[in-house]
């Protein structure tokens, strides 16, 4: 049994950011999304696949995502998640604030090194 079933977030909102970014490129169903995130995070994120679902529900509630019926690669009917207009806007804001933060961190590190 995994001792800590909660995913470890890199920083608050990292998982949401990853989900939004992934789904904006292409709407997906839950399993595909989980696989994709595992791939891109290079297993850096020790997450249980299930941990995605509370996050997805939160984002549905916030109106960043919506779900519709679609078909999986195996031709099964599945619920597909896709990013809404609001979600797109949120993503842009988040990205810019993360970038600002990184710029800040980089500057601090450079200055500290001099």
């Amino acid at each position, binding site marked *: 049994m995994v001792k800590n079933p909660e995913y470890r977030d890199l920083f608050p909102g990292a998982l949401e950011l990853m989900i939004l970014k992934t789904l904006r490129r292409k709407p997906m169903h839950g399993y595909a999304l989980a696989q994709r995130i595992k791939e891109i995070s290079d297993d850096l994120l020790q997450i*249980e696949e299930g941990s995605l*679902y*509370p996050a997805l*529900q939160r984002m549905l509630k916030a109106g960043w995502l919506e*779900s519709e019926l679609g078909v999986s690669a195996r031709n*099964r009917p599945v619920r597909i998640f896709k990013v809404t207009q609001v979600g797109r806007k949120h993503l842009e804001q988040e990205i810019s604030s993360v970038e600002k933060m990184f710029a800040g961190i980089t500057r601090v590190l450079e200055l500290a090194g001099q």
Partner: protein
Amino acid sequence: MGWLRQLFSRRRRYDDLSQSIREHLEEKIDDLMDHGMTRDQAELAARREFGNITRIEERSREVWQWPTLESLWADAKYALRRLRKSPAFTSIALLTLALGIGVNTGIFTLLDAVLLKSLPVPDPEQLFIVKQSDHAAEKSRFPYLLFDHVSRQLPDTASMAAMSWPDDFYVRTGSGQPQSTQGQLVSGNYFQVFETYPVLGRLLTPADDEKLGGSPVAVISHGYWQRQFGNDPAVIGRKLEVNHVPVTIVGVAPQGFFGARAGTQPAFWLPLTMQSDVQYHDHYSDFGGAEPLKPWIPQANINWLLLVVRVKSPAAVPQLMTVLNQQYKSHLESLTQYLGDPDRLQAMLRIHLSLEPGQRGFANLRQQFEQPLLLLMAMAAIVLLIVCANIANLLLARAAARQHALAVQLSIGASRTRLIQQMLAECLLLSVGGGVLGIAVAYWCARVLPRWASTGTAVIPLNLAPDARILAFSVIIAVATGVLSGLVPALQSASVDPASVLKAGALSIPGGKWASRWSARKMLVVAQVALSLLLLVGAGMFLKTLENYSRLNPGFDRDHLLNVQIDTHLVNYQTGDFPSLYQRLADRMEAIPGVRSASITSCSLVAGCFDSSDVTVSNGSGRRITRANAQINSVSLNYFATTGIQLLGGREFVTTDDASSPRVAIVNQTFARRYTGASNPIGLEFSYADNDPNRHQIVGVVSDARVNDIREAAPPIIYFPILQNVGNIDGLEVRTAADPHWVAAQARQAIADVDPRIPIVNVATLNEAVKDNLTQPRLIARLTTIFGILALALACLGLYGVMSYTMQRRTSEVGVRLALGSTRPAVLWLVIRETLLLAGFGAVMGLALAIVGMHVATSFLFGLSPEDPAIIALATGLLLLASAVAGFVPAWRAAHIEPVQALRIE
């Protein structure tokens, strides 16, 4: 209305969610099977990588909920269902909680009413009481002239009212007999200072102060209007006869208004200017020159008024203080003519005035009841703790029985926090239920206790209306009780290790040897036992105190004495009438068959008479020895023989001690000891004022008697022969051959025969009067006994519960013992011994608690030490006996186990 739509669409959301998760797993399983796993392997792997499905689903669903609220609701429903399933547990828990919480709320209601509540008037924090530096605020009395002078110079934002102490008057409404009724004389602006408004008619106004005796009007209280006039609006304009003086009712005060002294409820208020007309006679006058029989308003040396100030702006306080003290100083200076002694003069001129917060009114009731109320509150809190321990114990037993169910819940994904939450919900439900039921108990307590705490038939009027403080108190106490009793069981049951519980059989004994020997349940029982011993010892000591008081020899013969209290003030006797009146009263009383003797007194025994005076004691040649303060009592010849007070030295009063002979007096032992020390008091002299040529010679010393209150040591007393000190009297002491009750009716008749105009205040035996004195110790003893018995019963219940449970788990052990040849009495003793061990451990802790507790409560004990060994032994014995009885049932059950069956269960 978004949340409403959300509520409706939620079901669909949940379905979608479950569906998504199912799809996820299916896709994954297919994927894994493509990689060569069998279906079973793939399913297992998919679930493992997904995580705890139930928890994840639950957490995802919570996103759409108000999670705390909804899980609380679910917990409450679940708890309710579980409680319904075990009615015995639920009813015991509810009943004890109702008692525990109810008693606490009830006593707190009293405490609130007596100690905490502000006067029921607007902005009570603006009120202040004027206090003399040498007296408590409620004993600071002032003449009318001072009030008048200060009032004229007050700052604009301050106003001042004057009032007499509430007193009893004889009031006749319509044609009936006059009834003794409490009333008060107040200045015209009294109601304005308290900012009250009439329910009917008008209140008094400053115009009522203008002319001496010129305003025969009265404002009646709401309660009196209700009782006496049935809320009749036509009451305005009707007449009351107050001490034979007709006054017109002009208004009704609002409901609940009683003035500034909590615990009194004047039925009517008269203008101060009516003092002389209605013969109000309660005053302090330290200096000569007072003429109490003339109207008091113009007299600067009769102190009779209490002053209350309302200060609207704190900025006005300095100016107010200046005015007060300036005026007071010039008032004192005007009195210097009456004081010859320069020391005394200096002391008098040093007296100054200050203000005391008047938000809660005068402190009399608070002083009288603060200690007992705090004691009762502490005991009630102990009872509640015992109740908590009891509930916690019962809950632990239930949790133990549910261990298996809990383990299953945990292993299929319930979180521990959630389980704790569930258990706490159950407790809170119980305690809130108990609290609601407790309202009835609280109501009963708050209504009955004042009756138990009041002397005679008069109940102290208290404002017991629930306020925000009481509400907050009961809510806090109910919740705290719930948490307190539920926390340990909840934590313990949530710490169940599902694997070991599920692996082992239902009858396993988890934990090590220590854990089973000192389980939480046993600790709780020990605590219960300890606290109940504390209450039992308290009950024993308070009962013994009460017994000591009632067996106490008060210094007079209480078994054969009747107090006949009368009020001669209202008859308007002239000084010359008194000697023959005394004679006729005594003669008529002694003519009653069964009466041995009757004696006139100006201060009845144990009846709240506190006439006292300062005197200067000097030796025969006129040299001053000391200054003394003593209670004074003028009595007729056979007073000491009648009351049973012993003559210790010198002589008694004789017939020749009359107005024409030298003035004499007899003092009691305490007077002699305190003021004349080693020297023989007989032959010494004293006078009221330093330059007073009238001296009294001390001719005798009598034994001490507890004349004021059986609980108070005798004060210094001076007795005068009444013929040298004629005036109004307080009544007669009547000594009877048999039970004085039998002559009470004839004694009333005797008074009426002598003069039907004399109002009879009270006819009571001294035993009844003493019993009234003991109301408070009796109340405390009674309540502690009730609490102690309750606590003992709960502790026994706890012991019984723990031992039954322990023995049930040890059934097989007992079976083995019996099979190996142990006898049944040996098993019986084994269990009883274990019960006694628990109780004994509790008793040791309880003894320590009891000794500390009794030392704190020493002021409530009389005639015994706080470590009285007999009572401690008795209480401990009772406790152990009760424990043995509680342990007997499980012991009997264990001793009658059939070994074969017991072993088969395993």
